[in-house]
């Protein structure tokens, strides 16, 4: 962690570690494609987490070793994976019953934008030239109680991704619980953004500057003292 202080903000690895730290022992977790997949590598010792992949596997293990890939054992990102002892296969309707029915505890997703109310936009740029594709994102945000977003705080061109209101097409409204960026960890509660933690070297003021919506100190969150 000390090394990261050399430049402003957390590395990708640290961001994944931050998410992993908040995944409780025994949790059923669905990790989105891309950055979210990294989280699995950093679950603290002593915790057992069961991974769900929406294409029909509970108890997903590590990525398959080179040479032992099975084309009929893939994750939602179509990567070759493995299954742990105690895994179960099932069909798509049963898989999304787990998601929609609230049985998955936590999902971790990427984002184009998150609003201060917890709206998430992560499936479409709205560009008519792009091929629209939604996959399971809308089901996940509608069904999973804790939706964690992991994302760079700003776009490559420096625009805020955490905004007052999303202008990309929504994946879901008021669905995000917590946002993990390279600069901070932010809770969404009662349509407001509360900063839980900031990366070394980040100040509240600089964070506010890089955020498109008003942020608050976690201490201002209702019932914060009781909960922590």
């Amino acid at each position: 962690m000390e090394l990261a202080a050399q430049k402003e903000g957390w590395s990708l690895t640290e961001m994944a570690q931050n998410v992993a730290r908040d995944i409780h022992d025994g949790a059923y977790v669905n990790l989105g494609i891309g950055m979210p997949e990294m989280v699995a590598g950093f679950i603290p010792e002593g915790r057992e987490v069961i991974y769900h992949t929406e294409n029909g596997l509970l108890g997903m293990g590590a990525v398959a070793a080179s040479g032992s890939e099975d084309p009929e054992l893939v994750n939602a990102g179509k990567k070759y994976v493995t299954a742990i002892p105690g895994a179960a296969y099932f069909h798509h309707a049963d898989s999304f019953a787990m998601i929609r029915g609230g049985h998955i505890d936590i999902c971790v997703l990427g984002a184009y934008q998150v609003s201060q109310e917890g709206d998430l936009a992560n499936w479409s740029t709205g560009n008519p030239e792009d091929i629209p594709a939604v996959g399971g994102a809308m089901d996940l945000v509608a069904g999973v109680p804790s939706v964690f977003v992991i994302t760079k705080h700003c776009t490559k061109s420096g625009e805020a991704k955490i905004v007052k209101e999303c202008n990309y097409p929504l994946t879901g409204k008021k669905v995000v619980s917590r946002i993990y960026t390279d600069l901070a960890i932010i809770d969404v509660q009662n349509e407001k953004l509360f900063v839980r933690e900031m990366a070394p070297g980040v100040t509240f003021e600089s964070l506010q500057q890089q955020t498109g919506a008003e942020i608050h100190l976690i201490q201002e969150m209702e019932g914060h003292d009781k909960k922590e």
Partner: protein
Amino acid sequence: MINKIVESAAEAVAGIFDGATVMISGFGEAGSPVELIHALVDQRAKNLTVVSNNAGSGHVGLAALIENRQVSKIICSFPRTTISVVFPEMYRRGEIELELVPQGTLAERIRAGGAGIPAFYTPTSVNTPLAEGKEVRRFNGRDYVLEHAIKADFSLVKCHMADKYGNLVYNKTARNFGPVMCMAAKTTIVQARKIVELGEIDPECVVTPGIFVHRIVEVSNPADESKLVAEERRYPWN
């Protein structure tokens, strides 16, 4: 670390509270979690709403729970059998409420509860007394009735084998309502004839994935409820 195994039926049913909605698996005696139900009799939670296909036989299992006056309402498809005495008598005396639901609608409402579907349309019961007061809507020229999901606080389910993650397989037609009831409860409590090591259940053959199960107790020689009924046993044991 994940270990859903508890040591006794009493421990398994701990925390079932007065007024809870409790689903109970089984089609008649097949698949009925007799030992868990008896533990619930001992536990004495009352004013329960029970969701089960039948309403118990003789004076054991669900019938014993009803006879012990712990059940204020039952949601089921077929409360009448040749050997049911407790429910009919209490029903005629107005001491227990009945919501009668066609069997397939009951199964689908429970599945919907587990699958995050609040309501669906079905052709079953249209133009019958069981559709009275319900919304009817036409799709493609045919009438359907709107039915709502059923969820439970607890499910009591009997299975054949389980592992500590809660993966389950069942035995023959004792499977019946077990899988959907596991899905639809906040806390799913299972009695298994045998608890096996992780990986011993083929992942292709798991019927209920562990995500739907919260507590498992091994009951290696479960009573054959039909035998208890035939022997005119009563619980608490006579």
